[in-house]
């Protein structure tokens, strides 16, 4: 009789974040028990107090690096992970907390906390890939749970995940949405934003606000000119690019063009 192979081990790690991306896994109500059957959930403190120490076949990492302790901890996570996938805006770009990268962190601390000595933080919030090698990055604030299942399935079967890298515009076309920017003059980041949400905002009569981060090679400069023609001020443009993906290269560079 052939020896039974052990189930692949999954670990879910959290750094600076809102817990929303790892919640996406618990939000797979119809698939959660099947996932738990196909693999061994070896470390997932949000879901279980059980813990299997050692190494993991797949690590999902949520959150950004904002403390010296976390910068050291991610090195340990990498050493213990065969494959490491980052999930969400915080892990892939630094998240909303990366707005400190454009400000004086000491001023930020003084706004929120009375006693400086109690707070330990780095001056920047940085993505995981700035610290360790990453096997795949899944964008989104929050990630799409269908895409998360695809990523887990792909890594368990030893292939690359099939995640489209085109813009939200393509998703609107596929859905048959009327372009809200062309038809209604509603400012929209769809042309430069990575697909994955299913063109949610335009489907709700709202302009895309870029929560899936920049697509591959976005033409942000051309979009900015268009947004200006719709009445956006430099202050508006600065805020538009400097939000949940403020620290992603394409949005960071474009935001600096509008920073007085």
């Amino acid at each position, binding site marked *: 009789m052939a020896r039974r192979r052990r189930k692949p081990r999954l670990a879910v790690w959290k750094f600076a974040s809102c817990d929303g991306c790892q*919640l996406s896994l618990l939000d797979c109500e119809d698939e959660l028990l099947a996932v738990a059957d196909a693999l061994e959930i070896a470390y997932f403190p949000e879901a279980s107090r059980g813990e299997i120490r050692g190494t993991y076949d797949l690590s999902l990492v949520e959150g950004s690096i904002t403390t010296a302790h976390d910068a050291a901890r991610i090195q340990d996570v990498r050493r213990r992970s065969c494959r490491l996938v980052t999930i969400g805006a915080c892990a892939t770009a630094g998240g909303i907390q990366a707005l400190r990268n454009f400000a004086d962190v000491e001023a930020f601390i003084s706004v929120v906390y009375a006693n400086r000595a109690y707070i330990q933080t780095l001056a920047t919030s940085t993505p995981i890939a700035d610290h360790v090698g990453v096997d795949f990055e899944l964008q989104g604030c929050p990630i799409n749970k269908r895409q998360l299942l695809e990523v887990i399935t792909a890594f368990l079967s030893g292939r690359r995940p099939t995640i489209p890298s085109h813009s939200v515009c393509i998703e609107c076309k596929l859905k048959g949405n009327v372009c809200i920017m062309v038809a209604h003059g509603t400012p929209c980041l769809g042309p430069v934003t990575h697909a994955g949400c299913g063109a949610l905002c335009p489907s709700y009569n709202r302009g895309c606000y870029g929560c899936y981060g920049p697509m591959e090679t976005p033409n942000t400069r051309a979009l900015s000119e268009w947004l200006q023609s719709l009445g956006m001020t430099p202050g508006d443009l600065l805020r538009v690019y400097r939000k949940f993906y403020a620290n992603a290269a394409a949005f960071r560079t474009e935001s600096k063009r509008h920073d007085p």
Partner: protein
Amino acid sequence: MTHKTIKVNYLARVEGEGALRVTVRDGVVRAAELRIFEPPRFFEALLRGRAFAEAPDITARICGICPVAYQMSAVHAMENALDVHVDGPLRALRRLLYCGEWIESHALHIYLLHAPDFLGYAGAIDMARDHPETVRRGLALKKVGNAVLSLLGGREVHPINVRVGGFYRTPTPQELAPLAENLRRAREAALETVRWTAGFDFPDCNRDYELVALRHPQEYPFNEGRIVSNRGLDISVAEYNRHFVEEHIAHSTALHSRLRERNRYLVGPLARYSLNHDRLSPLAREAAAEAGLGPSCTNPFQSIIVRSVEVLYACDEALRIIEHYQEPERAAVELRPCAGVGYSATEAPRGLLFHRYRLNGDGTIAEAQIVPPTAQNQPSIEEDLKTFIGDWLELPDAALRERCEQTVRNYDPCISCATHFLNLEIDRA
């Protein structure tokens, strides 16, 4: 007695990072410290200079488990600053959205995070091996809450359809109809949940809390009401800072909140239920009575029954809203940016969530203040531990550690929110 230390370095089944340290001397608990080491993200600082309209999207990112609570407190505070009032079907849709979040968040905590403590499992996945139908019922209930969020908000985590003044797009009554089908099934599952949790074994741990929650003249509270307590507090939301104070404690990146006059207090399901029992729907009130709950509940371990009653109420209320819904002519009321100060408190699943903003004349945010429920409950969690652990010191270390963890999980603490959570370290000398 020799020196002895027990540690829980990372508290599981809570949202965020925290640890616990308990000091015991001569059989007496001297100190209990909940250490929150969730890294600070400085929301109140990064909101400065942002447009008022961005607050609901940005503050949602404080917590992936209860983003609607942040969105609701943000929009109501902004509307207060801009002196507009949202009424009619838009107001009803906001309550409906909150029902979705209560169902989703409470079902997550009841079935996946809290019940394993009572039944002796490390987590819901282990529990599912012996009780597959129960876990499936919990997941199905959670899914209906998420369906409300998806339809009305666009998605479960960080909904996109909420705006200051209303929504971007309102649903047609026909779109809500299939939701009603699901909610009727969820209401049955919620009733079964109340009966199931009422059968758990509860330690006799009633506490003398000052309970704080919203109270509304007609409704079980979500978005509106006065802030009241069982010790005579009765204030408007704008008076919050006159009565509550936040303190920065060395062992926590969460600020502790205290009542200026009377120190620690409790927010959340126990407080809400005990102060608003008469505002529950008849069905939810009957189910509570059948479960053995009086009009007030101060045993934190029984919070799991109270959450179940609130899930039942939320299903009932959601169905009532859908039944009476008529699509509004416009998805949002018109707003004109102006200088001003706005306040709001809404009932997040974990308790009162206070927001205050001061706006500049161009509608940008000059100051933001956010007081999440877990920060308000932290002193009470520590007091619970100090009060209860004395009776448990004879337990073996592993059992004592589990009991301490459960005491913290009673609160469904959301540490990501509070930062601004857990190692258990028990020092017995």
